[in-house]
């Protein structure tokens, strides 16, 4: 019974494919099955994650409202939960304004390419047991490659708008994304080293093993916990969310690189931002938090997809919490943090993961690796604090 519930979507897809392919002439069977299988996977992923995007926007606005001691949206639908539908309709019927001086084609292409790149990242995310659109041999690499390709679109948007605030925002965004991409990828390297595969499915399977009732999640090891924290910080910066939202910087730059976008093109940036957050959270879950696996052996009867989406929404809640409570960084703090703290920390973490692999299992391994990680954290943060030049206010004093 539990097995059927766990695999219900896989069974449903198989049934749909065989039923629809049955209507095709026999010589087209194979092609029809491949096309149908791809189409069903893609539409299921798109539908689920776009719905999740809508719910996340409402949750975020309600959460921020709670943090700022006010009601969030509470008028449309039950408890305001249909607010995203109203927002979507509003974005669709708004006028699409393009500045006269803008580079029309690049201005038009930027949000589309961005959305395509972000949606492509969902192709390799295993959302449940046997539930992954494409099991690529180099899945993790694919995820980061698609993310890296989206950086250029931010520049396209900012440059094509012919607006100095847009261009400032784009330059900030590129500098920030390039800088934080390095610790982001390096923090994922230990996982690849330990698992010995770049496939997201293998990574989750390696963690869905139980010893003494506990799952072997990477986050339950010293290097895994450090990697998870590094990954989450770098991911926050990579998706330009507060406290790293300098590219938008509404108090300085109007709205940064999408200042000159309106109507549905703006909505596309918005969708891409939130889908990017969901994809990054899903990748963090896959790499460090065991993907679709249960934390304890006695909880394995809960369907795998419930675990995945529960963990995903936990991380989304964390991001909302951080956005509501942490103030924005300054540009030089942002750069120093990436290059002088996150990058050395990620490199040390790679070494720690290597040591973990070769040391004999036991308490000694735990103490040693955790000690190195903590020592590195302490030393780096101390030197970071000490090396910080004395702040001199020339005009503000």
């Amino acid at each position, binding site marked *: 019974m539990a097995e059927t519930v766990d695999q219900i979507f896989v069974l449903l897809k198989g049934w749909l494919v065989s039923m629809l392919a049955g209507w095709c002439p026999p010589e087209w069977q194979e092609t029809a099955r491949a096309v149908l299988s791809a189409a069903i996977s893609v539409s299921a992923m798109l539908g689920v994650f776009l719905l999740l995007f809508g719910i996340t926007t409402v949750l975020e606005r309600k959460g921020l409202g709670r943090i700022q001691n006010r009601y969030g949206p509470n008028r449309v639908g039950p408890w305001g939960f249909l607010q995203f539908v109203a927002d979507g309709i509003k974005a669709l019927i708004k006028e699409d304004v393009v500045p006269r001086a803008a580079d029309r084609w690049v201005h038009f292409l930027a949000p589309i390419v961005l959305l395509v790149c972000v949606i492509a990242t969902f192709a390799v995310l295993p959302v449940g047991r046997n539930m992954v659109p494409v099991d690529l041999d*180099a899945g993790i690499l694919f995820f980061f490659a698609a993310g890296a390709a989206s950086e250029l679109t931010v520049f396209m948007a900012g440059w094509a708008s012919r607006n100095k605030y847009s261009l400032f925002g784009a330059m900030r965004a590129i500098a920030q994304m390039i800088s934080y991409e390095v610790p982001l990828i390096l923090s994922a390297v230990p996982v690849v080293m330990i698992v010995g595969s770049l496939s997201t499915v293998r990574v989750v399977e390696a963690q869905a093993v139980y010893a003494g009732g506990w799952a072997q999640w990477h986050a339950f090891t010293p290097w895994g916990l450090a990697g998870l924290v590094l990954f989450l910080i770098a991911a926050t910066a990579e998706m330009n969310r507060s406290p790293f939202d300098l590219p938008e910087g509404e108090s300085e730059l109007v709205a940064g690189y999408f200042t000159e976008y309106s109507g549905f093109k703006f909505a596309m940036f918005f969708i891409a931002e939130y889908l990017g957050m969901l994809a990054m959270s899903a990748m963090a879950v896959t790499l460090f938090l065991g993907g679709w696996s249960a934390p304890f052996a006695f909880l394995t009867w809960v369907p795998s997809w419930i675990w995945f989406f529960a963990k995903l929404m936990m991380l989304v809640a964390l991001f909302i919490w951080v956005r509501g409570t942490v103030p924005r960084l300054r540009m030089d703090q942002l750069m120093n943090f990436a290059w002088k703290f996150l990058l050395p920390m990620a490199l040390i973490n790679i070494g720690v993961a290597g040591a973990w692999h070769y040391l004999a299992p036991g308490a000694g391994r735990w103490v040693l690796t955790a000690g190195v990680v903590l020592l590195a954290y302490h030393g780096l943060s101390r030197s*970071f604090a000490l090396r910080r030049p004395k702040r001199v206010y020339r005009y503000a004093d």
Partner: protein
Amino acid sequence: MRPIFLFLAILTVAGAVAALTARQLVHGALYLAGAFAGLALLYLGLGAQFVGLVQILVYVGAVAILIVFAILLTRSSESPQAQRWGRAPWVGLGIGGLVFGALAVAILNSAVTQSPPWPAHSVTMDATVAQVGRSLMTDHVVALEAIGLLLTAALIGGALIALDEGRRFGGAPELGENSPDGTVTRGMPEPSHPGALPRSEGDRGGGAHAGGHGEARGGGA
């Protein structure tokens, strides 16, 4: 396979030609990114997942952005009047043709094109990432180490050049004064001009000597 290859080849070559002939430098950079992406898709079509994805990660994600940065930082993006043809286009065309010819001759004479038992489907030739990694770590480990050394040296050299510039030009250039010797901190140069800032120096001095912990700037970070 055939129509997809043709489509990608045309995309790549058209992107490269457009990058060369674009009047707007930024447009040229974007076309070049398109050509890079087409090349990556060609690699993926050949079953070389690792090379194709790294091509996107490095070339579309980093090199194209580096080019854009170079354009924006070295000249105003508002001056699109780049000349379509250089002073000696034929020299460039000649060199390009020579390189193309040499490569074509080398490929046509290589063992790949001369051995007749050529598999009909290239599907079986998928090189997994594990295979690539193993061969990099065993057969080609010397080359890998050499490239690693070269890149590290380049990285340190870049950091040193930036460090030197910070020392030389960092000290309050807007005041029109050379910075004094070693007082400027690395990375973030401070306007070390004691005469201009008597108040803040005095204020902060007391706090810094008192231990640095109880300052209003906040600890940890």
